[in-house]
């Protein structure tokens, strides 16, 4: 199996860009429907089921509605940034998908085609860089609307995304320590070689990554930038029609990308569990499926059906996380702002830091002891499981949300609030002081 010629590479790259772009937009459209149906099911309702069978044409109806609606432009808005902001928020969300491998390489007459838009050597760093760009769209939308609620939403989004970026980045470092590379194809390959998905040996990193991803995508319980009840949908208050739709497309493509990332980094990407036939990796110009005992690479045998099966595996894993995103949204109420900051800086960040140290020390110790293969993975699993138990049962406790209006130490007991007799009523300090004043 040989690599592609330059011409074929360009042609296939163009085809892949168009295909991935269309699939993402289609998936985003149907995620809006999934969100509405799942939310309805959770609330014992039915959801939109009128347009087409099971409501499957609803996204199309919504799209037509949004295109036909009037575009409003507030008189006091900064016109340039107001129009730029939706584009700025939707672009990074869509292009992040470029570095995520979505299936095993596909053999064609012209060579083996990688099922990834761009296998960048800086894979994960590219994802992190573009994920942080998303905040510009949100903040510019809030600022350029010239609306106090929109501005507050923008300020919140930037504060929140910057806070959780730290925990997000730190939760990825254990993955990088284990994989030894930042390209996502290699991370998938290393998981196949280890025989364990990283969610198992790096369980705490997985939890931290999922939680920070929720904050990064501005989903509930971290949807403070939108906050319908207090900021009338925050940064996109002033937007209408397709520009409003753009923010929705951006939000859902962020969710899709985050889900695909979780699947790739922690659930083995496109690899099918308990099956060696899909192990494929480019090693010194050849597609290999592993190494023999002697260290000789074994050539892989790609096939179109393997590509299909691995793509299905990837789709199932990604949709699972999309479902989790929706499921959590309709379970939890929104955090208060101080709670978001508390969780980000006082819980997530120290935990992530400590966990990076723990994983680094464990990996170093295991390397020194010469432990390799599955045993290495199991040893790390045990250490991580211990860390997860400590986190879930000891670090993450006493977090009940106290009422903001009446903290316990200042609460008024029933007897002083409602004295039984008029004499007692007069005897309370407040009344006595008032009587003395008169």
């Amino acid at each position, binding site marked *: 199996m040989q690599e592609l010629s330059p011409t074929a590479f360009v042609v296939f790259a163009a085809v892949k860009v168009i295909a991935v772009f269309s699939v993402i937009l289609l998936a985003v459209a149907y995620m809006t429907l999934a969100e509405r149906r*799942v939310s309805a*099911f*959770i*609330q*014992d*309702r*039915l959801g939109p089921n009128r347009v087409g069978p099971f409501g499957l044409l609803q996204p199309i109806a919504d799209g037509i509605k949004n295109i036909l609606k009037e575009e409003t432009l507030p008189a006091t808005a900064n016109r340039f940034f107001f129009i730029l902001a939706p584009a700025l928020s939707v672009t990074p969300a869509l292009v992040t998908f470029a570095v995520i491998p979505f299936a095993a390489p596909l053999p064609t007459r012209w060579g083996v085609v990688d099922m990834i838009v761009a296998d960048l050597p800086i894979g994960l760093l590219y994802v992190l860089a573009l994920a942080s760009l998303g905040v510009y769209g949100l903040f510019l939308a809030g600022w350029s609307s010239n609306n106090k609620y929109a501005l507050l939403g923008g300020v919140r989004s930037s504060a929140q995304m910057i806070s959780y970026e730290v925990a997000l980045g730190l939760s990825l470092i254990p993955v990088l320590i284990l994989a030894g590379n930042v390209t996502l194809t290699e991370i998938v390959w290393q998981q196949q070689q280890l025989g364990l998905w990283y969610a198992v040996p790096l369980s705490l990193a997985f*939890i931290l990554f999922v939680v920070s991803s929720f904050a990064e995508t501005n989903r509930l319980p971290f949807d403070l930038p939108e906050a319908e009840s207090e900021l009338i949908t925050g940064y996109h208050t002033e937007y209408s029609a397709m520009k409003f739709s753009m923010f929705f497309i951006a939000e859902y493509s962020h969710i899709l990308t985050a889900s695909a990332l979780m699947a790739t980094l922690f659930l083995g990407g496109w690899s099918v569990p308990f099956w060696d036939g899909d192990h494929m990796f480019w090693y010194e110009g050849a597609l290999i499926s592993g190494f023999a005992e002697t260290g000789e690479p074994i050539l892989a045998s790609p096939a179109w059906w393997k590509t299909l099966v691995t793509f299905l595996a990837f789709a199932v894993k990604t949709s699972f996380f999309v479902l989790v995103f929706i*499921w*959590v949204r*309709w*379970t*939890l109420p929104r955090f208060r702002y101080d709670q978001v900051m508390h*969780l980000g800086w006082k*819980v997530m960040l120290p935990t992530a830091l400590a966990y990076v140290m723990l994983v680094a020390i464990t990996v170093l110790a295991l390397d020194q002891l010469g432990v390799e293969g599955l045993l290495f993975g199991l040893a790390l699993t045990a250490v991580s499981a211990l860390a997860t138990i400590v*986190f*879930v*049962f000891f670090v*993450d*406790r*006493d*977090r*009940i949300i*106290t*009422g903001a209006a*009446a903290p*316990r130490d200042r*609460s008024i007991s*029933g007897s002083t*609030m*409602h004295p*039984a007799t008029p004499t007692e009523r007069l005897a309370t300090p407040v009344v006595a002081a008032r009587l003395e004043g008169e």
Partner: protein
Amino acid sequence: MAATVKVMRRPSEGSSSYLRATLKGMAITFKHMINPTKVTLEYPEERPEISPRWRGTHVMETHADGRPKCVACGLCPTVCPANCIRLVGGEDDMGNRYPIVYEIDEFRCIFCGMCQEVCPVEAIHVGVHFENSEYTRERFVYDLDRLMAQDHPSTLLWDPSDPVSE
């Protein structure tokens, strides 16, 4: 007089967490998500069961030969608290009184059912029917022909000697 105060206990501190509480909540929502019994009534296909004592759109009872049972006594416009019944009575050669004009404005009607209670010949009834939407306001004034053409059952009125309608 001492006011009764209901003391709401706030959940005590130190009993929960972010993560475990979230998972607990997700278990509850999952049970609802897979629960097939939904509260939604898919209206045009499924219809609500309404009580036989429902007081809805009026029905004018007719004789076998198609004449209205109404004798134009004038009791229903008199008793009507919403003043929504307009009646102009006439008399034929035999001396029988009959309604020349009998109109009910279903918009003004409060569906109290007093017209049915007061009617001495059991001609006007409120009916077990609720779907009376129209495109114009004028269409809500039902004339005699339209009242006679209604084919839904009329309401069972509450009988004090038989409180549960047995």
